[in-house]
């Protein structure tokens, strides 16, 4: 019986020839990612009694969750992290303003195909876009890996998702993956890996693949991956930290299930409050008035997202009373968007553009909703209270196009 992609990746990361489902193995990650939560991880690292990190070259930290820090405590967190980075000689540290960890890690070439990336952030699955297994872990586990260089994994089963057909104009990767989440459910891939195939996926850019791998976390997936191909190869020509070897699933690999969807008739999708699998067609919604339109995050804050949104708002003004918040996913994205004139168009339409960071996504600072407010968002979570206030608030998740169109209309729409 052939092997799935995750089986091959885990086998390699654990120094074994082959592994099988359910087997417990120990892996050492190619990279281990953390962000502002590094301050808490440092505390646990000290509690463990460790003195030196196992490998300062393999630890990656980006400050993104509270940037710039809104209060003293969060500023102190950053300071603790900077000191630790210096003291331990951690090589891949990206300070405030460089961008969101999941955007920066691949941008700087730290993700290569066929490796295990561990991350103390649930959307570490994003790195599957480059054919790596991005596996989320918790803070204590991250501290433990910092100390001893490895952790245990149980080899998961894999769900193969095949997206066939051609997406209609105005329908994007975000719509496709929201549709899949609606079908599979919020726990449909719990403990499992997902592999994405089909001609729709083959045509997707790396940015779009990041969107779908990012959202595989919302089905509970341990990893979501698009196998290495020409698109990956082209992208890695630009920046990659070293030689790599790609891995593929065998053609006779044993999948837990194979789900095939023809998306040729797909319409723009929206995940309604308060669950990500509460997915509907945008056009089936009544005119839902919005207060905030949020464009950004590790899901959809990249250059192609800003481009399409800027084209929609060009020459128009956002609806009275609506706030359009734009948080580019990284400095590189911001610079490119400035050069291309996207930012200007957005700002002229009335957008508030902020420093590259997570921003309103997690409800910790910046762009908090007031009671009763509704938000259309390009992010990945619409849980009650996610944007800082739970009283009668509602978050609707959609593509950047729907976010931009709704900002102009004042209610949720995908019509441009």
């Amino acid at each position, binding site marked *: 019986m052939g092997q799935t992609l995750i089986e091959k990746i885990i086998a390699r990361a654990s120094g074994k020839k082959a592994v099988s489902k359910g087997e417990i193995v120990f892996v050492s990650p190619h990279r281990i990612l953390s962000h502002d939560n590094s301050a808490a991880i440092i505390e646990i690292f000290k509690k463990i009694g460790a003195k030196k990190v196992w490998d300062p070259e393999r630890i990656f930290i980006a400050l993104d969750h509270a940037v710039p820090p809104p209060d003293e405590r969060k500023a102190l967190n950053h300071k603790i992290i900077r000191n630790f980075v210096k003291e331990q000689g951690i090589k891949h540290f990206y300070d405030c303003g460089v961008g969101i960890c999941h955007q920066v890690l691949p941008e700087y070439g730290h993700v290569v195909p066929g490796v295990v990336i561990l991350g103390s952030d649930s959307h570490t699955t994003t790195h599957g876009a480059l054919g790596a297994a991005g596996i989320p872990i918790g803070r204590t586990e991250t501290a*433990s890996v910092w100390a001893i260089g490895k952790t245990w994994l149980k080899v998961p089963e894999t769900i193969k998702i095949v997206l066939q057909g051609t997406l209609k104009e105005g329908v994007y990767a975000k719509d496709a993956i929201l549709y899949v989440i609606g079908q599979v459910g919020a726990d449909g891939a719990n403990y499992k890996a997902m592999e994405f195939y089909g001609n729709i996926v083959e045509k997707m850019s790396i940015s779009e693949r990041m969107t779908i791998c990012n959202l595989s976390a919302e089905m509970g997936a341990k990893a979501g991956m698009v196998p290495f191909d020409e698109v990956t190869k082209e992208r890695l020509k630009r920046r990659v930290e070293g030689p790599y070897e790609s891995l593929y699933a065998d053609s006779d690999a044993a999948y837990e299930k194979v789900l095939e969807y023809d998306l040729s008739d797909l319409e723009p999708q929206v995940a309604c409050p308060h669950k990500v699998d509460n997915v509907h067609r945008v056009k089936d919604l009544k005119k839902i008035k919005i207060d905030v339109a949020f464009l950004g995050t590790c899901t959809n804050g990249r250059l192609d997202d800003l481009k399409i949104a800027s084209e929609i708002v060009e020459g128009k003004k956002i609806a009275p009373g609506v706030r359009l918040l734009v948080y580019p996913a990284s400095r590189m994205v911001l610079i490119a968007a400035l050069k291309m004139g996207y930012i200007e168009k957005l700002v002229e339409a009335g957008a508030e553009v902020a420093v590259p960071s997570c921003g309103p996504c997690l409800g910790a600072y910046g762009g908090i909703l007031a009671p009763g407010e509704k938000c259309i968002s390009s992010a990945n979570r619409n849980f009650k209270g996610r944007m*800082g206030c739970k009283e009668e608030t509602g978050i609707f998740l959609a593509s950047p196009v729907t976010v931009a169109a709704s900002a102009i209309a004042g209610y949720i729409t995908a019509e441009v």
Partner: protein
Amino acid sequence: MKFEGRVWIFKDDDINTDLIYPGKYIYEPLKEEEQARHAMEDYDFDFSDQARKHDIIITGKNFGCGSSREQAVTCLKYAGVDAIVAKSFARLFYRNAINSAVAVIECPEAVDEAFKLEAKQGSRLSDLKMKIDLSNGKISLALKEYLLKEYSFPSWDEQAMLIFKAGGLVEYTKQRL
């Protein structure tokens, strides 16, 4: 490895980490009691007031889905919860729980029975008592002093048990430095 306690019933599926421990607190290094005070804040207001040592939570499927925040586990632990019995857990929550030495048990049959006994929707402190024996994989539900039913649950992975028995991943790692 035995637990015995009062039972909280959270009769929902997909109770996510934001409901268990809101995102606005995750970058505040709150002390144990403070964390406990915010436990289940966006889901059940009474919980943190009334939770006691050795309490047990019974809940639906995919408990703890969402973010990797470990406080979703530790806030419950500091509030007094020793064990959570669910139809299923989200993977990250499950791992975080083992790493913090909170017992997580998947036993849909016991959950269904408890849900049936507590017909009322929503969450609440029930009249039920629960006993859990990790060593033989048995759960029993009791009302007042009457034993109602016994259930078996699948044993944990050996590695998970090792970490749990060490008292969590911090202790486990300490022994391996």
